[in-house]
């Protein structure tokens, strides 16, 4: 309970709730689009840079098992999502694959919120977490889209376009590019920009708080669609992340990740992408209904993880780390 309270009273959770509230009372307010874009660039690039610097300190043995379980999660999460939706939810191939592409991928914002939360609980995660984020980002989308494209017999040419789109998206350029830049410049040069990009510093946390305010507005604007998606998807949007989160925390702990690291990996597995996945799914699986995949990932799973999921995965991780 203490953990949940600490999370709900954190600036980012409160700002997120304010954004949702503003939308529910039909306020016109939203962040200017360019500021929103600028904030996301800053947050992702800072993460990439810091992750790259930290990666320079890690040995192969530190990273090997976490990388293996991360890739495993990238393969498992889209498949479990797809089969649960097909078999239990009776969704069409396109709808199930479309939603699976979202749940197989990662929400970078949820990841950042988890990183910030575990640090606030003095459970410093491993420095190479951004590397794991980039590894988990794309396999899920591709596996799910491949299932959908094969089953609905669409030409494979569009998969190549999707691969290009996912790998050259802003998130990937900033994260992977940032990792490489951070790795190349090393600790000494990091010192010269740390004041601005420090992911534990006030600038980063302030930017994150503003960003979550806007994300609350974006999520809140989808709440009206909740009644369109039906009870199954409402339950799915909460149960699926908990299952994936528990799996991620467990595998992360097995791979030797710390309390904080396993929490963050679990959160990544639990989260659903809503920035990279929607355009990719729209192009590749046109029959999939956007209301289903956007509403479940953005209006159900995302708020659930930000407000309740992260402290829950942290508690699970505590239990697995003998606490």
């Amino acid at each position, binding site marked *: 309970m203490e953990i949940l309270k600490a999370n709900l009273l954190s600036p980012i959770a409160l700002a997120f709730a304010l954004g949702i509230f503003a939308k529910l009372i039909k306020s016109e307010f939203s962040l200017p689009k360019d500021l929103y874009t600028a904030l996301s660039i800053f947050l992702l690039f800072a993460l990439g840079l810091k992750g790259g610097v930290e990666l320079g300190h890690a040995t192969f043995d530190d990273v090997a098992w976490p990388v293996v379980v991360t890739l495993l999660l990238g393969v498992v999460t889209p498949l479990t999502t797809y089969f649960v939706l097909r078999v239990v939810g009776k969704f069409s191939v396109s709808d199930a694959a479309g939603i699976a592409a979202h749940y197989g991928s990662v929400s970078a914002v949820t990841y950042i919120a988890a990183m910030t939360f575990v640090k606030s609980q003095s459970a410093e995660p491993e420095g190479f977490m951004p590397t794991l984020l980039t590894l988990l980002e794309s396999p899920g989308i591709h596996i799910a889209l491949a299932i959908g494209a094969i089953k609905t017999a669409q030409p494979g040419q569009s998969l190549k*376009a999707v691969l290009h789109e996912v790998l050259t998206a802003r998130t990937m350029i900033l994260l992977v590019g940032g990792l490489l830049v951070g790795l190349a410049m090393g600790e000494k040069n990091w010192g010269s920009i740390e004041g601005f990009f420090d992911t534990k510093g006030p600038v980063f946390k302030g930017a994150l708080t503003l960003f979550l305010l806007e994300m609350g507005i974006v999520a809140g604007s989808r709440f009206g669609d909740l009644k369109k998606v039906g009870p199954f998807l409402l339950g799915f949007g909460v149960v699926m992340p908990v299952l994936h989160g528990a799996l991620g925390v467990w595998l992360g702990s097995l791979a030797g990740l710390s309390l904080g690291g396993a929490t963050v990996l679990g959160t990544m597995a639990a989260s659903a992408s809503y920035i990279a996945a*929607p*355009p990719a799914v*729209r*192009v590749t699986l*046109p*029959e999939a209904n*956007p*209301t289903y995949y*956007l509403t479940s990932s953005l209006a159900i799973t995302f708020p659930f993880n930000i407000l309740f999921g992260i402290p829950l995965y942290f508690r699970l991780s505590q239990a697995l780390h003998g606490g």
Partner: protein
Amino acid sequence: MDTVTLKMVTLVAEPVLEEKLTSKLLELGAKGFTVTDARGRGSRGIRASEVPGESVRIEVVVSAKVSDAILEHVKQAFFPNYAVIAWVTTVDVVRGEKYV
């Protein structure tokens, strides 16, 4: 002024289709095109704008034959599952040789 009578095809589509549509236009014989951001509402309601991003309005001046080919392609490949509308206007253009 000497003008030539040609067809202008206008397509308004959800943003994910921009690349697919414009590359197809060139493949079907268009020499160029103009793309602008667009907003609005149609028979699919807000569905068109669900995947974030503004709709695009693509305009292209072509011969009647290419115009028919474009419309046929859009009808078969995009009308069933995407938010797209298309119409054709007859236009009198200067320097008509640029378009065919």
